[in-house]
């Protein structure tokens, strides 16, 4: 593809919220002059996504993920900046654009509660004006991929949460969108169902070449689906690059797990920070730079049965990223970070 499918340039969304102090007097005062405060939900982010990419959008609650997603889906006007998706400016809500993208929200339903799933599908067919032949084919395909066969003719209220989510996703894809915005698509589901939905998104992306932008609290989703992640925090882009690079950059530590012969083990805090210690197994957190040296000392000093060196789990890395105070979390562009963070 010549130009990226999603282009975001210096996008900003600033909300003005009324502020009120407690007390009757303050309430009366606010009638005359409302004090407002600017919430910078999204504060100037820039990125591109190429056709067929699956990009994970990470950030803690309130980081600006959903606001960004809503701007790209045409639901919110930005305060400043620009964005193009498939060449359209989303918030102009061009019918052609709406026909080519979809938004899935894990916590919200569009299916009609009291009637069978397939009838809600019919409704979307009418709204999107899908030709009968294409509709039949898409439904067949989705039913096969998501194993919807037995669910189609049940009323939505009789479905489990996971079954409902599968049907929600299918309903959102009937018009074969080229761009998918998935906001927490697996939230609240059990592990098996999460895995199935993940598998489906990957498969859909492979088959149709659709571009996917996904937010999730479950790192497993991100690890399984996204080679690339974009991290935002306090409305600012913190990192944009490969998932491995994120770990590499943000975690200056390695985890060394040693299994020792002589239990109870001696105090190992001289070698590094003890993260876990049970039976004969001890896990140490060690600065990356001195990992080889510490490993050597451990092997020399102790009777080691087994030793492994690992990157910390992705959740922990992310947690560390978000633990940074606001002023130090400044990004400088693609995959680049300010040195003091490292």
């Amino acid at each position: 593809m010549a130009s990226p499918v999603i282009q975001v340039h210096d996008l900003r969304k600033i909300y003005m919220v009324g502020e009120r102090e407690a007390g009757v007097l303050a309430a009366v005062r606010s009638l005359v002059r409302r004090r407002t405060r600017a919430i910078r939900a999204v504060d100037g982010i820039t990125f591109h996504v190429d056709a067929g990419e699956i990009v994970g959008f990470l950030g803690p609650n309130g980081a600006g993920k959903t606001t960004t997603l809503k701007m790209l889906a045409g639901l919110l006007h930005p305060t400043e900046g620009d964005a193009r998706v498939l060449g359209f400016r989303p918030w102009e809500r061009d019918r052609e654009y709406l026909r080519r993208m979809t938004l899935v929200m894990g916590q919200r339903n569009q299916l009609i509660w009291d009637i069978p799933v397939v009838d809600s599908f019919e409704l979307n067919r009418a709204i999107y004006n899908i030709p009968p032949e294409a509709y039949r084919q898409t439904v067949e395909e989705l039913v096969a991929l998501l194993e919807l066969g037995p669910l189609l003719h049940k009323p939505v209220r009789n479905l489990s949460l996971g079954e409902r989510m599968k049907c929600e996703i299918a309903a959102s894809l009937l018009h074969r969108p080229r761009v998918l915005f998935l906001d927490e698509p697996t939230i609240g589901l059990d592990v098996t169902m999460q895995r199935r939905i993940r598998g489906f998104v990957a498969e859909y992306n492979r088959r149709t070449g659709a571009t996917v932008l996904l937010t999730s609290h479950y790192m497993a989703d991100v690890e399984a689906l996204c080679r690339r992640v974009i991290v935002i925090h306090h409305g600012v882009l913190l990192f944009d690059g490969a998932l491995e690079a994120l770990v590499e950059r943000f975690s200056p530590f390695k985890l060394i797990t040693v299994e020792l012969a002589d239990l109870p083990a001696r105090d190992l805090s001289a070698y590094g920070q003890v993260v876990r210690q049970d039976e004969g197994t001890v896990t140490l957190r060690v600065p990356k730079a001195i990992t080889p040296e510490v490993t050597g000392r451990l092997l020399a000093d102790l009777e080691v049965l087994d030793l492994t060196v690992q990157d910390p789990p992705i959740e922990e890395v992310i947690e560390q990223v978000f633990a940074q105070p606001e002023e130090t979390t400044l990004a400088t562009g693609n995959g680049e970070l300010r040195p003091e963070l490292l």
Partner: protein
Amino acid sequence: MHYLRLFLTYLKLGLLAELEYRANFWIQLVQTAMELALALGGLAVVFRHTGDLGGWRPAELLALLGVYFLIGGLIRTMVRPSMQKFMEDIRKGTLDFTLTKPADAQVLVSIQRFELWKITDVGVGIALLAIALGRLSDSVGPLQAAMFGLTLLSGGLIVYSVWLILATFSFWFVKVENILVIFMTMYEAARWPVTIYPPWLRWILTFLIPVAFATTVPAQAVTGRMDPTTLGIAAGMAGILLVVSRAFWLYGLRFYSGASA
């Protein structure tokens, strides 16, 4: 064409949903019967003591009652359920789904839900009208019928526009359902010809919460007391309110998506 098909699809879905709760049909029938008993009983008591009420003869009030049931039934079948769903969608955030659809959001919002069993009210309204017209047949010609159709359409559009305006307030306020209660309460007053009310109340029912156009005016058309001015005001009011409600809706929508922020 596209929107007509959408309308029919929603209608079908409404029927499907109602068929899930078949007992509701009988309950609705009881409620309609009770409503009818109350209305007819009221008329019966009044006409025990007088030959006409403010110039309205029994058959003419029956026609008014027919229009009252007809429009009320349409509100309860089509307008109210859709507007309630819309307000619920704003609260739950599911309005986003509607806004990401490639169709006019006002149209989608306005036809998205039907409570078809409430159609019993419409049926009763038509029956009452038929009986009344049978008795008034000497005074109803093609001209009256045409004016009746026009004023009924205007009344329906006025009622829809007012509901849309009231519902649009939920972009700013959370609890708007209560405003809708005001409308239904005032609509009850429209069961009687507004011409009998004192001027201040007539003014409220005509211009502030314009239920008069939905019941009294069409009934005037069918009982041969329509003058061109009233006809013009009804049609003009319908046109103005349609435009105003559309503009207000778009303004609310812009506020929702934060264009003004």
